[in-house]
């Protein structure tokens, strides 16, 4: 319990302290970055220490268990992102410690979402991570692209949070309280389900749909990714999403797990998943800009994750968390590769990557591994996530959904392999000059690949840990066939 609290405090105070010392350390990028990284790593460790110690913080936040697992994933994401930023700090206005604080706050927001046991803290967590990412996306204030991306993201985000909040207010009315247990108890005791529940649920899903970039709430994703600083896009593509997907699973199972309700949200999630996977993959097919391509790819990936939630079983939720973990390593790795290569003078278009296998074989190899993991090639993290998600869907009787998901994986191969083929089999456009990728970037990439390989080959311990964390929820999930 204490450890979880320490981890949360680290994220909150660490971020604030980084801001506070910003003026002192302004000229010392290594110190600030190291501080940010240290905070993230320490938080990761403390979350890891605490995941078997459940508790409640100030009545509003579930410590340990699921929230610790979520905290670990988000701290890890923060650490990897900070490493990516460190690789070329002057890109992010060197010494400006704000970026590290914002990254840490994004992680804090995600952790709060996951551990929240009531709608208020859930909302606050979502807003905290949203505001931090709005600012990160618009971080290049003198850049039209960055500002455009941030504005689109902000306006749509404001709309989404209004929809979400409206949904929450209706759920509050239907459930007679803000706490999940209150809602679950009220609904279970009701003779007929309150009418406000349904619009509340719909708007809630719409709001989360925006956060998770589910089609048709996804339009902001590619634009925001393309315009944002690359590491901000990396964070955006995994941090709030990992937080939101686990938080959504937590909310749906704990507050709205009643069978009469779960049938409805499962149906809605199935439709959203099918739409998201299909449209995301199809839109990704012909993308020329790599960040846009990864943007659409992340849309499709999230569609696949949702399949696990749609299954509505404990195994499905377990698979979702494993997927999120592997996806964090993979996607941050992919974006870090792009950022590192970009810093080394390689463009962001797919065509710029021609012949990269010769010019910078190490980075190209690592990038290839990330792409393969995204595509879901066995022994890599992406495969493990997909496998267990699909399995949970099949076990829940969602054969058609699983089939569509598998077909979509095949479509996805086209665009991932297009990049890989470009790198390894096509000659470079300009003279094949070697590209230098700096050591920190390589470290970040190597860490990512290690994560991808370890999760891909030995998913067991991770699944085990997740299962332990989910154990207390077991009784609350009324669905399960």
């Amino acid at each position, binding site marked *: 319990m204490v450890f979880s609290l320490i981890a949360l405090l680290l994220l909150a105070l660490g971020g604030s302290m980084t801001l506070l010392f910003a003026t002192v350390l302004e000229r010392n990028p290594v110190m600030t970055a190291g501080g940010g990284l240290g905070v993230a790593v320490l938080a990761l460790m403390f979350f890891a220490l605490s995941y078997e110690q459940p508790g409640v913080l100030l009545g509003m936040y579930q410590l340990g268990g699921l929230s610790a697992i979520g905290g670990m994933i988000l701290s890890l994401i923060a650490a990897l992102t900070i490493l990516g930023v460190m690789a070329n700090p002057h890109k992010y206005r060197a010494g400006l410690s704000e970026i590290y604080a914002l990254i840490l706050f994004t992680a804090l927001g995600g952790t709060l979402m996951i551990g929240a046991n009531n709608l208020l803290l859930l909302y606050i967590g979502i807003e905290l991570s949203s505001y931090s990412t709005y600012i990160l996306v618009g971080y290049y204030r003198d850049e039209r692209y960055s500002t455009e991306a941030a504005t689109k993201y902000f306006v749509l985000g404001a709309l989404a949070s209004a929809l979400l909040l409206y949904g929450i207010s209706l759920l509050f009315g239907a459930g007679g309280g803000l706490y999940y247990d209150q809602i679950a108890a009220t609904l279970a005791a009701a003779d007929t389900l309150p009418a406000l529940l*349904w*619009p509340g*649920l719909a708007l809630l899903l719409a709001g989360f749909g925006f956060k998770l970039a589910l089609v*048709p709430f996804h339009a902001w994703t590619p634009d925001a990714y393309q315009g944002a600083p690359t590491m901000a896009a990396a964070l955006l593509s995994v941090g709030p999403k990992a937080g939101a997907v686990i938080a959504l699973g937590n909310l749906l199972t704990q507050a709205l797990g009643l069978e009469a309700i779960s049938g409805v949200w499962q149906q809605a999630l199935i439709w959203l998943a099918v739409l998201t996977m299909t449209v995301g993959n*199809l839109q990704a097919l*012909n993308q020329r800009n790599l960040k846009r391509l990864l943007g659409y790819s992340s849309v499709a990936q999230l569609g696949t994750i949702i399949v696990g939630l749609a299954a509505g079983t404990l195994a499905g939720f*377990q698979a979702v968390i494993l997927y999120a973990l592997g996806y964090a390593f993979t996607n941050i790795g992919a974006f870090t590769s792009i950022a590192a290569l970009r810093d080394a003078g390689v463009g962001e278009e797919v065509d710029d990557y021609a012949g990269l296998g010769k010019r910078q074989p190490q980075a190209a190899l690592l990038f290839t591994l990330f792409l393969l993991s995204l595509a879901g090639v066995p022994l890599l993290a992406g495969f493990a996530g997909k496998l267990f998600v699909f399995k949970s869907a099949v076990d829940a009787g969602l054969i058609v959904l699983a089939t569509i998901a598998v077909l979509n994986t095949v479509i996805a191969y086209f665009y991932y392999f297009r990049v890989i083929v470009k790198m390894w089999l096509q000659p470079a456009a300009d003279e094949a000059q070697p590209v230098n990728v700096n050591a920190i970037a390589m470290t970040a990439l190597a860490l990512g690949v290690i994560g991808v390989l370890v999760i891909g080959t030995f998913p*067991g311990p991770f*699944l085990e840990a997740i299962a332990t964390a989910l154990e207390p929820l077991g009784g609350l999930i009324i669905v399960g066939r």
Partner: protein
Amino acid sequence: MNPLSYAYLIPLLPALGFLLNMLFGYRLGKRGGAYLSVGLLLTSTLLATALLLQVRQAAPVWDKAAVFEVLEAEEALPPLEEVLSEAKAMGASRERVEALEAEIALAEEKLTELEHEALIREPAADFPFSSETPWITIAGEQGIPFGFLLDPFAALMVFMVSLVSLLIHLFSVEYMAGEERYPTFFAYISLFAAAMLGMVMSRNLFLLLLFWELMGVMSYLLIGFFYKKVSAQQAMKKAFLVTKLADLGLLVGIFWIYRAFGTLDLLAIGELAPGLLAGSAGVATGIGLLLFLGAMGKSAQFPLHVWLLDAMEGPTPVSAMIHAATMVAAGVYLMARAYPILEMGNALPLIAWVGGLTALFAAALAPAFADIKKILAWSTVSQLGFMFLGLGAFGWIAAIFHLVAHAFFKSLLFLGSGSMIHGSGTQDIFAMNQLKKYMPSTRWTFIIGGLSLAGVFPFAGFWSKDEILLAVKNALSVNGGYGLLLLIGYAASFLTALYISRTYLIAFEQAKRPSPWQAAKWNQGGLGVLNMSAEDLAQDAEYDHHDTHDTPHESGWHITTALWVLAISATVFGIIGSPFTGNALQGFVYRGIVPELEPLSAQWLGFIVSTLVALSGITLAYLLYGNARLKLQAPQLLTQLLQQRFYLDQAYYFFAAGPLTRLAKPLAWFDRRIIDALVDFLAWLVAIVGDALRRVQTGRLEHYAWTMAAAAVVLLLALSFGGQL
């Protein structure tokens, strides 16, 4: 100290050797990498020895004489029960039934008492040592844990594999010297050993399968080590394809086991099998046959033996590795592990027949060859046949006894042949020139290995082969068909003694003379067997052109040390399975309540008969090749038939390649014109839709907002009305 605390190092160290050799092998100096591998494997071997001793320490100890009494008492039970059930069926009086029941109860009580008495030392609490850590967990199912199982059988195998691999490594240090890819060779062969060690230590079938496949890959790489030779390329492909085909059976078998048992844990399977499969012999037979298919591929049983002979394209240490310690032993090991399932089904007689026929067939082919490695390869096929014969005749302990004994003497023979090739520069036994004059160590160790192979008292092969033949004899009581198999076994033993003596006599005793095989146009290797063109052959001939030394020389200390250690092992090892030591081995490795031992009275006749058979084989060889008293010219047709291995390979190529190609042509057309077009069309469709959807992304904020809000409203309406309904 629990052996589990260090056992994982045993396969890990050679694997580390692989890694280090691959990464730094070329920077460690001329032989640095090689010695590193040897050192790591030596550590493994020491650990394996410690493991074996500790398992021995923890295993129960039985009093042999008392065990016989137990067995006798056990045998007395079924007839009594039969009488009782008959009496019940006949409607005998209550008193009679009660009396019979009391008698049975008394017998059972006595049996328990005897069992208790026979057990001199209780097994340790944690025996057999096993570990289990979660690996692949699946919510709601058992999943597949990662774990080791260190029972006596595994410990014995680990010891044998590590020791033999160590000696082969040591041998290779000298033998492979000067090779271009010297460190790569050590990397491969280390991983090969690691895979086998990992396999015999695996606690579940899935892990076992992983190592099994790793071994397949390593054998592929090692057989094709001289990858510039076309024949090596062909051989590696052939080995891979044939074993892969067989692995398919194994894979299906493992799936079936998971279905039937809900677990792949070997311990659990052993415990569950008698209960689960009691009424379903069909399942047990099916699983048994599928596993056997896998084992046939790996252990080169007829008709899947075709790859083994061509695997001789690899360097000689590789052959020793494949033929003794690792690859081929895997199949026998698997079958022995799966024995609880096998004995519940009806697959055993088939296995016995396949094994027996393979033993005879291969032993008959061996005398027709002049290439020493090929002779030994046939010998391996034949000896493996013996092992399967033993397995099929309910003597699985006999089979693994022979497996270990064979590992020692066959690696000895292979390494000896390597030494001979090294010293004389040729593989043709006729071209070797009175090697006994030049290579004393090689000669004596070869003699020891040969005698062991021929089954001469008191070498290891004698004891183990006799155990198998004894099992076959005992199986007669179950099925009369085993009588014929017993004859086949003796015939194969006779031929074995004949061909190994012939090899020795020609290579060591005789002066160099033109090889009769060189003249024939169907000579060694060649077109049909490996499906090579004449150009390929010519190219290969150029590649491996080297001088034969007329005056051979003895090999250096690496090789002779390896040979002598193996020679001692091949001599001594058999003793622990002999009646002299109270069949210590059989008492150590067993399943069931008490070890099933045989009294000496049941064995001595078999000993005499097989000694006579072996001696007659040797005598015949001496008459034919030693002093040429007997001049016997085999008909050319027969020789050709044998030389071409009964044209089996050609048949495979003909039937597999020919019709398939013909069939493939229309299929290819169909594939190109219809399937591909369909796929292209689908891809085109996907691209078009993708492009259209891409344009939906207009980049305009208001459009995005409209879509989102509209979607939210649609969701609202759908859920609200849907939820209300």
